[in-house]
């Protein structure tokens, strides 16, 4: 039980690592990265031990609870086996919870602690594993970067934040981890902030997610004031107890759903995620595909009882959660078709897959959704790292599939193989990881009375295959183009030149900065000298990436192949369900009985995947290989197709909507109103005084004998300009005179009040 007792080490070690990197990193031989990797490895080991002991505990709980009962008796807690319920139902395995007092304010205690159950163990393992691999990968990828140490610091702090959140016992701690992640995401997206595009993307991500966070705060507030506790277990129990009003739960669910939408890049707040690709590729891989963005889904899974009751998920039909997920699957997949930046294809794919997870939660498929988090982490991290590998060694830091890639499969065999395996896993090719998890979600949707969403899921599977086939085709097949063909063009100039012309695509080659860093860092860094040679090779044509990059790729692709067998319904290997699903009753809703697997049921999706592959292959061949084919340039020639393409190209104009309608709509009227006041009231007043006297002068001139009262006419004229000038004198721009007028007026006003009111 050592590991369960000490699993607080999992977030604490990276947190300590972060401070070590910040304080001593620059002086260390490896510039601080050793602290990052060592702390992540420690976390991984402890997480592994925790997982092992958790599994033991589940097995004990399922068999006889003699040992664990004794153990819990010693702890002063009792294992509560589920007395009611059917014979074959899983007994409820009590989560391992420990709390410490964090701070106290008034009568409210804020606790910090750990809540270990199957869900948190899964995420702990995934986060620690992917973080470790990504840090190893970054050793090579970011070598010579100008903010190498800070990069590792932020990466480690991110892991600490995510692990804190995953382990959270109460919602306050949850919020803490959540916000740390948001901050790190901001820092890492803007890692190369010298480029305006990157810092804009970072800000966009930060503010968009912050919009969602308002929902989280509101949700937490609602839950706290209604249930009287921050504890996740307490809230879950309260939500299921039936003592809570449905309306309150619905409100809380909606507020929390907004948070999920923001963090997990769901429609309509998904626009930040593709822009977040401005960060270095390891960041995209770790934060913006496999771990941080699933925090939203994790929130959904963690407080599932609230959503279950709030959205009445067991009723079937439709609910906001499933609808948002469903919409996201489709729109993100459509967007992925028109991207030319390989990372943006993967980004939209991530958005779409997160939509699957959210839809899974929405249709009551809790276990498949969590399982999809698990499997998706492996293959999506692998895909991103593969894209990074291509950019690093194959296309000279360009991510543009159409301009700088193609034909790389011979040059980069390992990257190619892992990329294809992960693509197949993502598409849901049978016997790879994605098949088991995604199909389970789709099947459960049908089984639980959400037929519409089953069809959406199937359509999504078809589209996923198609756009990923396009992506693989463009990157690895066909003719080598641009940098992939060894044409060493100045990527930087290229990025700022033509790429700016179609601004919607944004930046094609953000990672070009690694080069700049290199030139700047010429002076120091022993690490750098070795790299100088390596890099001259890089410039001259595609080749396979070094081991530090390929080993993580291989490990992840192994995960992409085998992770699915933890819960392979076709073979009745359902260990994942056994270990992770908490069992129903006490703090967790009684889930709809999972559908038993049948190959007939899975047939449609397999067929669709195959169809998607074949269709995409033909279209790709036609579009990109043979320029004379009838479909080439079709989007230019056919008006409706062009309209659709433009619509997608501009990302449904959502960004424009946010910028031009919402932001401008808020700011514009205020500025206009102020301007109007200035023009019409202030100026108008001065004008009016002038006009009045002028009119008065005219009147006098006209009606009073000009010969006799000429002097008074002149006087009126002088009065007019004098009044105007007199009022102008107040607006002389000297702030201290404004202050004098202000204070004087206040004093006189007060005096007037004293005299007249008192009397």
């Amino acid at each position: 039980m050592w590991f369960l007792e000490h699993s607080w080490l999992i977030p604490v070690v990276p947190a300590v690592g972060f401070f070590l990197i910040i304080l001593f990193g620059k002086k260390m031989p490896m510039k601080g990265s050793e602290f990052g990797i060592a702390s992540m490895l420690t976390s991984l080991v402890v997480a592994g031990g925790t997982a092992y002991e958790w599994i033991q505990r589940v097995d004990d709980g399922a068999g006889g609870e003699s040992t664990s009962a004794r153990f819990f008796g010693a702890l002063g807690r009792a294992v509560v086996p589920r007395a009611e319920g059917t014979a074959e139902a899983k007994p409820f395995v009590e989560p391992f919870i420990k709390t410490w007092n964090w701070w106290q304010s008034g009568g409210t205690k804020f606790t910090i602690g750990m809540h270990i159950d199957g869900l948190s163990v899964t995420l702990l393992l995934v986060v620690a594993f992917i973080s470790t691999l990504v840090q190893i990968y970054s050793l090579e990828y970011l070598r010579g970067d100008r903010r190498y140490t800070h990069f590792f610091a932020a990466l480690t702090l991110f892991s600490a934040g995510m692990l804190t959140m995953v382990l959270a016992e109460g919602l306050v701690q949850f919020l803490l981890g959540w916000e740390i992640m948001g901050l790190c995401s901001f820092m890492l997206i803007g890692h190369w902030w010298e480029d305006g595009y990157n810092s804009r993307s970072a800000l966009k991500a930060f503010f968009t997610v912050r919009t969602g966070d308002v929902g989280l705060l509101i949700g937490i507030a609602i839950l706290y004031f209604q249930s009287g506790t921050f504890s996740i277990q307490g809230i879950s129990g309260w939500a299921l107890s039936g003592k809570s009003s449905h309306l309150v739960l619905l409100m809380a669910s909606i507020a929390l759903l907004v948070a999920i939408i923001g963090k997990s890049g769901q429609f309509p707040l998904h626009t930040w995620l593709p822009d977040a690709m401005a960060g270095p590729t390891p960041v995209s891989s770790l934060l913006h595909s496999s771990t941080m963005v699933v925090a939203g889904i994790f929130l959904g899974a963690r407080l599932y009882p609230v959503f279950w009751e709030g959205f009445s998920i067991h009723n079937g039909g439709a609910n906001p959660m499933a609808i948002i997920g469903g919409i996201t699957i489709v729109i993100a997949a459509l967007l992925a078709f028109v991207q030319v930046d390989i990372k943006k294809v993967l980004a939209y794919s991530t958005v779409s897959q997160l939509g699957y997870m959210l839809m899974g939660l929405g249709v009551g498929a809790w276990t498949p959704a969590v399982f999809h988090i698990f499997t998706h982490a492996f293959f999506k991290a692998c895909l991103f790292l593969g894209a990074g590998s291509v950019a690093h060694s194959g296309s000279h830091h360009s991510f543009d599939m159409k301009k700088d890639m193609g034909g790389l499969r011979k040059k980069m065999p390992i990257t190619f193989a892992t990329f294809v395996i992960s693509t197949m896993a993502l598409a849901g090719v049978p016997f790879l990881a994605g098949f088991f998890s995604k199909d389970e979600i789709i099947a459960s949707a049908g089984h639980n009375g959400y037929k519409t969403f089953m069809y959406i899921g199937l359509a999504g599977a078809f589209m996923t295959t198609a756009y990923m086939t396009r992506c693989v085709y463009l990157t690895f097949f066909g003719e080598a183009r641009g940098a992939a063909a060894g044409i060493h063009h100045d990527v930087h100039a290229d990025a700022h030149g033509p790429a700016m012309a179609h601004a919607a695509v944004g930046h094609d080659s953000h990672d070009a900065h690694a080069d700049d860093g290199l030139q700047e860092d010429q002076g120091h860094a022993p690490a750098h000298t070795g790299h100088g040679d390596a890099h001259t090779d890089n410039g001259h044509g595609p080749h396979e990436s070094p081991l530090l990059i390929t080993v993580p790729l291989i490990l992840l692709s192994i995960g992409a192949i085998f992770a699915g067998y933890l819960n392979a319904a076709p073979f009745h290997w359902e260990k994942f369900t056994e270990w992770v699903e908490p069992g129903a009753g006490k703090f967790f809703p009684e889930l709809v009985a999972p559908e038993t697997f049948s190959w007939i049921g899975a047939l449609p999706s397999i067929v669709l995947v195959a169809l998607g592959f074949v269709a995409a292959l033909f279209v790709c061949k036609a579009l990109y290989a043979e320029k004379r084919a009838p479909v080439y340039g079709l989007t230019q020639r056919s008006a409706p197709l062009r309209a659709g393409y433009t619509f997608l190209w501009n990302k449904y104009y959502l960004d424009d909507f946010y910028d031009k309608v919402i932001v401008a709509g808020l700011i514009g009227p205020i500025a206009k109103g102020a301007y109007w006041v200035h023009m019409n009231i202030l100026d108008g007043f001065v004008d009016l005084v002038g006009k009045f006297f002028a009119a008065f002068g005219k009147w006098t001139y006209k009606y009073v004998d000009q010969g006799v009262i000429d002097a008074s006419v002149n006087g009126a004229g002088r009065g007019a300009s004098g009044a105007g000038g007199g009022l102008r004198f107040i607006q002389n721009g000297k702030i201290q005179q404004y202050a004098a007028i202000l204070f004087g007026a206040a004093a006189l006003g007060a005096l007037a009040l004293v005299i007249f009111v008192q009397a």
Partner: protein
Amino acid sequence: MLLNEFLLLGAALFCIGVYGVIARKNGVMVLMSIELILNSVNINLLAFSLRHGGDVTGQVFSLYVIAVAAAEVAVGLAVVLLIYRNRRSIALDEMSEMKG
């Protein structure tokens, strides 16, 4: 102790501060005068706090005033610094860009 002693002291400090804000030319000195005003407010808050039998509300808000004053000085001095950098002078009466 009379309540009015403190209140009158506060009022006097306040008026001196107002004089400084209007009459001083040097930006830094204007900021100092603002500090006088803020301190007079604090004396008032604490005097009324004691009048209500040591009510903590006054103390809490005087602490908040101190914190805000610190923020104000930081920003104010940064502004003065920026003005100095742009104009080589921090004489406030030479600035009349806001002239209407």
